[in-house]
């Protein structure tokens, strides 16, 4: 074919060798990716496909809105809680319920602990193997590794040559057993891996340290929500009542002992992020700073809704500690306000998604959306409907819809938030970014890359770890001032509700901007709609042919060996894809689900 130029500025050419990656692993859920590479093994066309669909919003119809958080929390167990928080905010918006200050502080601590946990686990356990070669770590000199460790993070106590030797011996034994487990069939001879053995050993050691430590980060949520994964939430506040020194305080959800536990976890989380995660990002970054592929939409079109309200119940941008706004056409000088209620701003398109609209040339706002599944493959598909060899991207090719902001494909996530924050001159973000760029000796443009996405996530984890402490102190101060309220139950009883209402709620999930829209009728859910981060990032082409953020980020990347998709994984992972999140849709009029005809 001839080269097609997309309205958002990418030249697509699918004439070269087609490379298929299915499943894309080390993500949440299921996805497929196809690219075409030219004679120089440079990616000239990219096709990203969501390969799962569960229909949760269909299931929500007719349910009690107070229960919705539990259902939507099960959209994703990795970003566990963020959908639940979005849901209780959505219902509170619809029913005009104001929550107590303590509930806001506790919710923020829970949401921030998710940012820390999710980002850390993403880097070490889902992303690191794109940069780090565990087999190469066997060649490392433990003494040199120890020196590297002390140089990159002098405060980290685990740095002796003996410590690294022990880890190396354990790794050696593991590799020599011939049972490579999760490392089996990795791309360990691929020249895309650039770390020296000592850095590989240090990173593998921290892979294990992080695996041990991560389980602590979330225990703040076990205290406030009773369990993790999937803690409990409450419309109107939080379920954990406070009893500092009254009768039976020992058996109360929150007392001095529980708060002390939380304080300790917060401090240890800050330590780990600052002495292990951040130094590792800088160390790995310093070896890969010449690999600046993967910018995609990050320097052009980014979107953030904002989150972490300082005071309760005020969701306006000035009260949100995480930035909000939209940047388009690469113009960082102008940050546009975003209104989730405006039918002209956010719309979803389906001409390339496995759904049906009466008029697919138009997009629909989530309050007015339609969903009818329509699993149908294009004429140029290779294979059959249940054995796809190669997709036809000129037709429908994904279970993900294509959301657009004023017609623009947008990137969301930590990098999008940091770009918006940087453009707005957010002092904490600006300071973090400038220091990182200067430590690596790279210009601002380097931020718009795969590595920039990975770095922004780490910086955000650091920011979030500290902000947990801010809200913990705020909680203590408020209790000290005599306010121990945690829930507003004035409108908990459905009998107190109006006949028909609608609402919207949002958060910044670890993976990016997340919003839910609800319509409540006769005390039941009439319509529930989620537009989630991976729907933005993983979107297929839209009615005008704009490609989504995943697709854009893969363009023009050079692959060392097309049959070994290290570079594709590296860039896709930098978004931390969550496919179970991305594929949820339903009709607002409660359309019955059509039986899908496979043609």
């Amino acid at each position, binding site marked *: 074919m001839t080269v097609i130029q997309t309205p958002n500025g990418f030249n697509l050419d699918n004439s070269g060798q087609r490379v*298929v990656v299915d499943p894309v692993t080390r993500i949440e859920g299921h996805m497929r990716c196809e690219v075409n590479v030219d004679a120089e093994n440079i990616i000239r066309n990219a096709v990203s496909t969501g390969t799962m669909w569960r229909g949760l919003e269909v299931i929500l119809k007719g349910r009690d809105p107070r*229960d919705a958080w539990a259902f939507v929390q099960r959209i994703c167990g990795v970003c566990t809680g963020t959908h639940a928080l979005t849901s209780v905010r959505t219902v509170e918006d619809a029913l005009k319920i104001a929550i107590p200050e303590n509930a806001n502080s506790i919710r923020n601590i829970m949401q921030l602990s998710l940012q820390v946990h999710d980002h850390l686990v993403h880097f070490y356990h889902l992303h690191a193997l794109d940069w780090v070669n565990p087999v190469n770590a066997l060649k490392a000199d433990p003494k040199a590794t120890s020196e590297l460790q002390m140089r990159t993070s002098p405060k980290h106590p685990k740095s002796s040559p003996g410590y690294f030797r022990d880890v190396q011996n354990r790794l050696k034994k593991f590799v020599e057993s011939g049972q490579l487990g999760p490392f089996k069939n990795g791309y360990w001879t691929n020249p895309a891996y650039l770390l020296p053995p000592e850095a590989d050993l240090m990173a593998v050691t921290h892979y294990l340290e992080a*695996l041990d430590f991560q389980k602590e980060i979330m225990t703040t949520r076990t205290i406030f929500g*009773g369990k993790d994964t999937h803690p409990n939430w409450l419309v109107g506040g939080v379920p954990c009542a406070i009893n500092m020194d009254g009768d039976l305080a020992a058996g109360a959800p929150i007392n001095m002992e529980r708060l002390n536990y939380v304080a300790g976890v917060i401090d240890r989380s800050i330590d780990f992020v600052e002495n292990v995660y951040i130094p590792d990002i800088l160390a790995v970054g310093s070896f890969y700073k010449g690999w600046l592929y993967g910018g995609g939409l990050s320097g052009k079109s980014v979107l953030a809704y904002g989150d972490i309200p300082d005071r309760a119940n005020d969701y306006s941008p000035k009260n949100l500690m995480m930035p909000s706004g939209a940047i388009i056409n690469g113009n960082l000088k102008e940050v546009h306000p975003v209104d989730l209620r405006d039918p002209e701003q956010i719309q979803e398109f389906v001409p390339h998604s496995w759904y049906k609209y009466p008029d697919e040339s138009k997009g629909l706002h989530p309050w007015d959306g339609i969903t009818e599944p329509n699993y149908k493959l294009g004429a140029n598909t290779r294979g059959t409907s249940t054995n796809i060899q190669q997709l036809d991207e000129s037709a429908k090719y994904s279970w993900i819809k294509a959301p657009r902001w004023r017609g623009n494909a947008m990137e969301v996530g930590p990098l999008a938030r940091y770009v918006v924050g940087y453009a707005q001159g957010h002092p904490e973000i600006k300071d973090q970014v400038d220091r990182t760029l200067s430590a690596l000796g790279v210009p601002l443009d380097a931020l718009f890359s795969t590595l920039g996405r990975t770095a922004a996530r780490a910086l955000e984890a650091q920011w979030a770890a500290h902000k947990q402490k801010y809200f913990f102190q705020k909680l203590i101060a408020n209790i000290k001032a005599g306010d121990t309220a945690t829930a507003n139950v004035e409108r908990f009883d459905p009998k107190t509700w109006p006949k028909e209402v609608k609402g919207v709620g949002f958060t910044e999930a670890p993976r990016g901007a997340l919003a839910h829209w609800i319509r409540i009728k006769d005390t039941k859910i009439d319509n529930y709609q989620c537009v989630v981060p991976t729907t933005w990032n993983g979107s297929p082409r839209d009615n005008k042919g704009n490609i989504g953020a995943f697709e854009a980020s893969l363009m023009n990347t050079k692959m060392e060996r097309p049959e070994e998709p290290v570079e594709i994984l590296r860039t896709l992972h930098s978004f931390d894809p969550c496919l179970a999140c991305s594929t949820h849709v339903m009709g607002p009029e409660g359309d019955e689900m059509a039986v899908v005809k496979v043609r």
Partner: protein
Amino acid sequence: MTETFYEVMRRQGITRRSFLKYCSLTAASLGLGPSFAPKIAHAMETKPRIPVLWLHGLECTCCSESFIRSAHPLAKDVILSMISLDYDDTIMAAAGQQAEAIVQETIEKYDGNFILACEGNPPLNQEGMSCIIAGKPYLEQLKHAAEHCKAIISWGSCASWGCVQAARPNPTQATPIDKVPGLAAKPIIKVPGCPPIAEVMTAVITYILTFDRFPELDRQGRPKMFYSQRIHDKCYRRPHFDAGQFVEAFDDEGARKGYCLYKVGCKGPTTYNACSTVRWNGGLSFPIQAGHPCIGCSEDGFWDKGSFYDRLTNIHGFGIEASADEIGGTAAAVVGTAVAAHAAVSAVKRARQKGGDV
């Protein structure tokens, strides 16, 4: 060359003496004579890591997330030293064809001798294509692996019962593993919960590795050791229930005193799980302790039993004890005989004899 269970214990600072003592206690707890202790010790000292294929269907990955939070044993030690986690698309290095090749390699090398761990479930609608792996329905991958495995672990409520995507109207016809049409008849252990408790997950794995068999199962296929009691039975708030002291509304005086959550919808009286005994995240807490009623997430069809905030019955006052126990009694009646459990254990043994040593 391979690190055995014994070596893991040694590395964790357990002496040979306490290791042997552990083996004796194990023999005793299994009702075996002291002469069995050396056999158990021998098995634990020499066993290589058993291959595990951990497949993911329609799910939210909360089971994996729970698993990595295990405090004892640590997830790291399970993955590096106890099992050989050869396929798990959430954490494996390989992708695409290199990942899919592992399923086939494992089948060829360990036919009848690997464990199939299922997280999530397959959809039957949309020709199975609402969950696609390698261009094909996940259902195919699942059935192929099941055909050759030794036994199946159904992680969580998705694999055990269907869970949220199977809640009414179940648009994709998501189907729990044991109900998948045409699935090879293999022993299945269900470890329900959304998610299951981390330490319950790792305890199930360690039990199977240590004793070469499933723990005793109830009639629904759940390990009795964790699922034979209602949360209500061991709840620390039970005395308040018995005394008729209830939370009437969230954040009321009763909520602050840790009174019983029955009236705000607690499903503890009908939920079989270890939350009130083992508790969560290293024994730190559980939902009721943090002030929220149990939503019954380890029970079959818990999404379709009315609001989480509706109380189980409408009976007021001091008659509740009897009523709640009636409810519990009904649930208890479906749990029970060890017949199914023994059948499953025998099946594991048969599979082992057929397929060689574990």
